[in-house]
């Protein structure tokens, strides 16, 4: 009886906790791509990504950079006339790509996401001085210096912590994370 789930089913399964309607109800109207502030940097628009998932074009979906560029502004989710949670779809494909390690080694997105989540899980807060190096090396020397300069300025003004800080009752937070991340939470 048991057959291997198709790619679109796998992605839908990852959306089991999403509040959105099923991906297959997409009417391809393009509201998501029209609303997207970073669509110009994507090689496929969000609408096409959903179309490609529905068409089970696994390789093409995983090859494109669309979901890595998603800024999680949720504008698409708010406006979608089919009430699909498109931002969640982006996360689902991201998770899929990370678990199956389908992304290219030189891609910054996965490392960035992973470091971000790890810092959060470790201390309950994001810590930029740790996060920044994950993507900084993909830039030129000039940009790195610019970033470093800005970071110093922010630290001086108290806008960025010099040392990592922790939240209160971190254990409770970690327990929550263990519950909500289906893979078992922080490793």
């Amino acid at each position, binding site marked *: 009886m048991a057959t291997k789930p198709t790619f679109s089913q796998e992605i839908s399964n990852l959306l089991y906790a999403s509040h959105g*309607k099923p991906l297959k109800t997409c*009417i*391809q*109207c*393009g*509201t*998501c*791509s*029209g*609303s*997207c502030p970073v*669509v*110009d940097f994507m090689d*496929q*628009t969000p*609408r*096409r990504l959903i179309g490609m998932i529905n068409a089970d074009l696994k390789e093409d979906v995983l090859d494109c950079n669309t979901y890595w560029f998603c800024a999680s502004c949720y*504008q698409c989710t708010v*406006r*979608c*006339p*089919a*009430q699909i949670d498109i931002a969640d779809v982006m996360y689902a494909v991201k998770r899929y790509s990370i678990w199956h390690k389908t992304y290219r080694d030189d891609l910054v997105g996965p490392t960035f996401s992973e470091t971000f989540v790890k810092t959060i899980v470790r201390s309950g807060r994001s810590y930029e001085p740790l996060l920044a190096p994950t993507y900084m090396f993909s830039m030129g020397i000039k940009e790195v210096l610019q970033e470093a300069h800005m970071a110093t300025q922010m630290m001086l003004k108290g806008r960025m912590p010099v040392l990592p800080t922790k939240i209160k009752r971190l254990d409770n937070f970690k327990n929550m994370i263990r519950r909500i991340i289906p893979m078992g939470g922080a490793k």
Partner: protein
Amino acid sequence: MSEEKIGVYICHCGTNIAKVVDVEDVAEWAGNQPNVEVSREYKFMCSSLGQDLIEEDIKEKGLTRIVVSSCSPHMHEKTFRTACERGGLNPFMFEMANIREHDSWTTDDETAATQKAKALTNAAIERVVHHEALEQLPVEINPNTLVVGGGIAGITAALELADGGRHVYLVEREPSIGGHMAQLDKTFPTLDCSACILTPKMVDAGQHPNITLLTWSEVEKVDGFIGNFTVSIRKKARYVNEEHCTGCGICIEKCPFNVVDDIFEAGMGDRKVIYRPFPQAVPKYPVIDKENCVYFQKGKCKACEKFCPTEPNSIEFDQQDEILTVDVGNIILATGFQLFDSTKIPQYGYGRLPNVFTGIEFERMVNASGPTDGKIVLRDKKTAPKSVAIIHCVGSRDENYHKYCSKICCMYSLKFAHLVHERIPDAEVYNCYIDMRTPGKGYEEFYNRLLEEGTHFIRGKVAEVTNAARKPEEKGKLIVQVEDTLIGRQRRVPVDMVILSPAMEAQPDSKEISQLFKMGCDFDGFFTERHPKLDPVATMTDGILIAGACQGPKDVPDSVAQGAAAAARVAGLINLGTVMMEPVRASINQEDCSGCRICNNMCPYNAIVFHADRKVSEVITALCQGCGTCVAACPSGIISGAHFTNDQLFSQIEGILWDVRPEKELVSA
């Protein structure tokens, strides 16, 4: 055990029932039930061969009761009753079990479905034993008809009936009939002038000897049933005497106060405080808008009265609302629609960005008798736009607002595009659509015509309209941000004017209207027809019909067709003169009645009289509608409803519980 001989027939309904229910098993099982003389299964019981089966069995085997397990009684109860009658049996010796809608269509579980089919069939078998022979009651049809709503659907219905020699009361809430069609400039796809084809019909309706026109009026109360409705209509005070007024319009000219016309001009233009919505209004008499009239608010002015040339003066400031009561046989509801409020979608900027217009605003703007004399201009009322974007599906096809497709928007958006091309030949027009839906005679050809005229079609739902420019060429323009899904790229189209095409939605008070007329309306507020395909103008309430956009989004030809269809249905009933009613009536056992009079005031049809001399209540059969209120209310339990007696209902319940009820012996033990 009684000596009844019951015939049980289990229908396959093709595969509708037989796919899930083991009909052979049910038929065999039913054959073993007490009193069952013959039990059969057949592919289509409703076919003439299926009906013949019943007829022959009654004649040959002397059956006295019939049970058919098939579809809903709504579909074929009448068919099988007639078959019983042909076989020589009283039609009320029949009972129908619904094993399709209530069983096979609801599940894939064959065992459970077969079990339920047995339960439902058994309930019918045990009930039918207690059936009594009844005769249908003829009810006379009052030949007058009430039409509610004076839009194109209502006008058509009224004229069809009036031309056929029947009297019609046409009630309209606004000061003039005409409805939304009177606001339009052109009608798609032939581009006839809307007023030119509508006003002759309005004049006909206004002058027809068989039509009593009641504008500025609303239905307050509806009593009665098919053939005999009594309707109370509130005729709101016009403050103008309709008998004396000649409609010369001097009062309108002399009235010193202007207000924005939110209804007819959709906020695009002004009207006087004493006004006629538009020049061709029917009837021609003006109305005083009490809320804005300086005389009513401050006690001074009376300019209209001073200048009124009629003798005696037509202006009557002391006029009061009148309640009229009319008796009618049938009611046609044609209450129409309203447009979706575009401010609910903030990203389209309506109400915030001045040059975003709604469809009806544009419609008034291009109308030659409208506030701009037919010139297409921006909100400053002088600049003609060089580029226009038309946004489809505003509020429709959207789970957040209305799920349905509003049906007419594609066509009227194309019409807008054409009108822009026609009035401003060098303007660029962009139509942003999700899917182009142009089904209809000449509609697709109209779309082709627009393609030839050079309209830019962008397939994509517009994400937002903004005035935040990113490039120099976007400065001072409205930017329509949309994905052109056929290219797969986000586009920002700078335009001067944006027209939104809002969805048609039900009238805001449609739920109250449906309660007033005791018929159903769906989740969206549109009235529910008796059958979505085969009976689109009737409702579940006999004698109440629906026509036009109150039933669902509809264009002019469809509304006219429905108006005429509803009128034809009414005309047919009036021609018959009487209608046969179900003999489902309450009756009071005169010997046991204690005369408590509890039932007297309960009856919604005033069908119960109290005989003071004998101190008993009695039901007037002609007025009783068989609702059962008195049956439930009677403290002595001596009122019974024919065809719904206690015996019948309790044995039906016993029957449906056949597999779980304890044996009779167990109960007594």
